[in-house]
């Protein structure tokens, strides 16, 4: 009898309730099928946020269950069936009103206190010995500068595990938002302002992230990776980045052709790579990402393409198709020009 009524009237809130609970619990402990998840924190900041969120979440589930079941119970019990009593003309009840004003207020205080405590804990001011990184958002790629280490790289942020990190974030054009969910909440990158993020990554790994503030045509292609390495690996990465660029292997004709093509693509040379890209010792263009050690990166084109020869070739053939609205012009390169450039770029370890 009850099942029939449950089905005929409104059974969904129960299913909706269960749907809310089970998958979340399941997800919390599964492996890495969700690389950009906000529920698998791997730094002190994101763990603080996650703890606060779980606290609020369970309060919400409690209120959800209480209020929705009151709603469903009322609907089922007082539905008009033959012989049901006439409606009692109640106008109100002050005590009940006070009760259900204070109850939500109390729950909100229970949420507000940890919230404000966490706000002040995550103010974003890192200790003095933190790794300083300047993050600059561009239309549709990320630039990272390590002032202490003199390194400039793009899209892939390398950080040492266990050491505090201080990001000072700004933008070179429109508003972006730097967001690597597993490491910390997002912080807007705004032109003319510098905002801050501070966290201490506590586990090694490659963490996904993405721009989270609409910034134009290729907002969706402005992805990033954060490589957290053991301190030793980080130091070797820094050493390689700061080392003098490896000389072009003169014996490999393809790489030599690639270097020539990099410096000058047909007349007029307006579209040559050196105009927009910096390649230490070769060029100082700043419109595009710094390519000094592009060979050592795992992805290119704002983290959307793998940096193997197929990925680079696909990007060089038609940047506009990969990143609509991209400022990099589409030059009709011949296949061997592309092969040469790929070889050259991959040699820039």
């Amino acid at each position, binding site marked *: 009898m009850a099942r029939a009524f449950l089905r005929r009237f*409104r059974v969904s809130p129960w299913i909706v309730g269960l*749907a*809310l609970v089970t998958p*979340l619990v399941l*997800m919390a402990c599964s492996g890495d099928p*969700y690389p*950009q*998840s*906000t*529920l698998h924190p791997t730094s002190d900041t994101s763990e603080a*946020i996650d703890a*606060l*969120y779980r606290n*609020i979440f369970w309060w*919400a589930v409690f209120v*959800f269950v209480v*209020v*929705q079941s009151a709603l469903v119970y*009322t*609907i089922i019990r*007082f*539905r008009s069936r033959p012989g*049901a*009593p006439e409606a009692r003309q*109640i*106008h*109100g009840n002050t005590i009940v*009103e006070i009760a259900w004003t204070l109850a*939500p*207020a109390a729950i*909100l205080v229970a*949420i507000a206190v940890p*919230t*404000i405590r*966490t*706000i002040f804990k995550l103010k974003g001011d890192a200790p003095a010995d933190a790794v300083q990184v300047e993050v600059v958002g561009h239309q549709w790629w990320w630039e990272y500068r390590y002032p202490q280490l003199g390194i400039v790289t793009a899209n892939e942020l390398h950080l040492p595990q266990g050491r505090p990190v201080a990001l000072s974030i700004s933008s070179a054009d*429109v*508003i972006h938002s730097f*967001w690597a*969910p597993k490491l*910390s*909440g*997002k912080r*807007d990158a*705004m*032109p*003319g*302002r510098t*905002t801050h993020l501070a966290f201490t990554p506590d586990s090694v790994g490659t963490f*996904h992230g993405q721009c*989270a*503030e*609409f*910034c134009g*045509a290729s*907002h*969706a292609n402005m992805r990033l990776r954060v490589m957290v390495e053991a301190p030793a690996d980080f130091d070797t990465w820094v050493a390689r980045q700061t080392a003098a660029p490896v000389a072009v292997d003169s014996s490999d004709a393809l790489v030599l052709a690639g270097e020539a093509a990099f410096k000058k693509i047909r007349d007029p040379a307006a579209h040559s790579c050196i105009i927009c890209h910096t390649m230490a010792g070769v060029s100082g263009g700043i419109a595009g990402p710094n390519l000094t050690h592009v060979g050592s990166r795992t992805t290119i084109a704002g983290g*959307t393409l793998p940096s193997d020869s197929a990925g680079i070739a696909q990007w060089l053939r038609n940047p506009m198709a990969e990143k*609509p*609205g991209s400022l990099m012009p589409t030059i009709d390169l011949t296949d061997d020009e592309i092969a040469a450039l790929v070889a050259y770029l991959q040699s820039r370890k």
Partner: protein
Amino acid sequence: MATTAMPHSTTAGPTAPTGLWSWITTTDHKRIGVMYGVTAFVFFLIGGLEALIIRLQLGAPGNSIVSAEHYNQLFTMHGTTMVFLAIMPLSAAFFNFVIPLQIGARDVAFPRLNAFSYWVFLLGGLFMNASFLAGPLFGTGTLSVAPDAGWFGYANLTSPQFSPGPNIDFWVLGLQILGIASLAAGFNFITTIINLRAPGMRLMRMPVFTWMSFVTQFLIVTAFPVITIGLVFLMFDRVFGTNFYRVSAGGDVLLWQHLFWLFGHPEVYILILPAMGIVSEVLPTFSRKPLFGYAVVVYSGVLIGVVGWGVWAHHMFATGLGPIADSVFSASTMLIAVPTGVKIFNWIATMWGGRLEFRPAMLFAIGFIAQFIIGGLSGVMHASPPADLQQTDTYFVVAHFHYVLVGGAVFGLFAGFYYWWPKVFGHTLRDGLGKLHFWLMFVGVNLTFFPMHFSGLLGMPRRIYTYGADLGLNTFNLLSTAGALLTGVAVLVFVINMFLSRRGPPAGPNPWNAATLEWATDSPPPVYNFTVIPTVHDLLPLWRKGGMEPSPLPATPPAPIHVPPGSVWPLCAAIGIITMGVGALMHHHLVPSLATALVGLAVLVVSIYQWAFEPFEV
């Protein structure tokens, strides 16, 4: 201001004039309400279509149903259309038709201003949507100049440097024009509610829908000027090259966000309060008992309106306003959850002890409550800044505001459609189709927006035309797309219901046996609404023990009633405004732009003078 003695067009019971001209010059709040409803519903369907294409594009990763540029235009127009061209005007349709009837008036305080609001809204909506087809006029293909910077168009992406095309000009000018329509309606309804109540109807005897509309009008009247100024700065930046949002000149991009969200949050209460009002009318009628805690529901509505002004920066927690500002706005946002919660408890208590009849209107009202609870709770979740740093600008927030806007406002408006349909057209919508519509929509909306909570928490940002296949979001997006298609079918069922029920049996003055004044007169009501203005003695006049005085209303008016004539000048004034808008749109070519704008101004000024000195008796 009419001075010459004007032969009153008093007739015993004037039959409404018919024909297109009578519609163009109408000043009858009922006709204007129907026109608002039809126009807004068409824009609602357009917005829904945009949503369907968005969902098809996001159905799978790396899809290419639409290009990035088209997708950005679609989601911007979906947001702008749904907020400004669908939900607000649908609420306005109910304001127009129902408020005068509920407070026992013959019409609004300024009938011509009412017509002016509608025509400016219609032309503004057409102006905004013309951007889809206006590409060739600007030397590019079609589907290339619609606004593409999001419904809240953050600064310096909308600056001439980063949005050189006419896309944002359409958006800025369109919103300015729509703002004029809303402001005009705001002054009109505030005066109507204050000044034209039936004798004996004190403020605390007004129906809750009128009360919520009253708070909404105050929010409109105080919030729209702020966005008008924000848009003026953007328009000056784009047309004259001023420096308001130019970072190189010291301009601050956050100024736009503050000005927009100072308007933006009262705006979302402008969207939800009318629906709350409708639910507060529907529940008592189908529970056969009065609203529980009338005064508390009214005061919490007023409190929401006032506190609504103090929460705007919770949209900006990610910009790093500093811990003090974060704490203040987090606290005020949580504070506003209390009156909202109180309203929900009062609705449930209204049904407690009642005899619930599950007609479609009632089902939609219950659907409103169930889904508004989920929307409210997910809202409280990101009222706390640290949690918001993970949730803002992700699909978790998309899920939140769709639960309160679709699950809330749209369900409330559909409840209003089913509830007042007999009063507007004289026949009810079919019950069976109504229930089918509800169930399909309820499942469709939940199937669409519930998975978005998960895709948001799993890292899917807002407004991306595609996403990586490796993020594990594929199934959730597929579910959302399926839900969107189902919701589309549900709306189709409603459209079919509208046409099939045209030949329905006459519904009579009070089909639901409801208590408020609009059910005392015929369905559809005569041009003058009430043969005799009733005197009201308590909150629920039609449920009074001793019946209503004079009870019931006489069939024909004892004395001739003056019905204000039509006027063409509101439409002419609206045409003047839209011409100025088109002129401003062509600002890249100085001479034609100035010429069109001046012609528009001339038409506007002439219309205003004619309007002012036209003999018109209210």
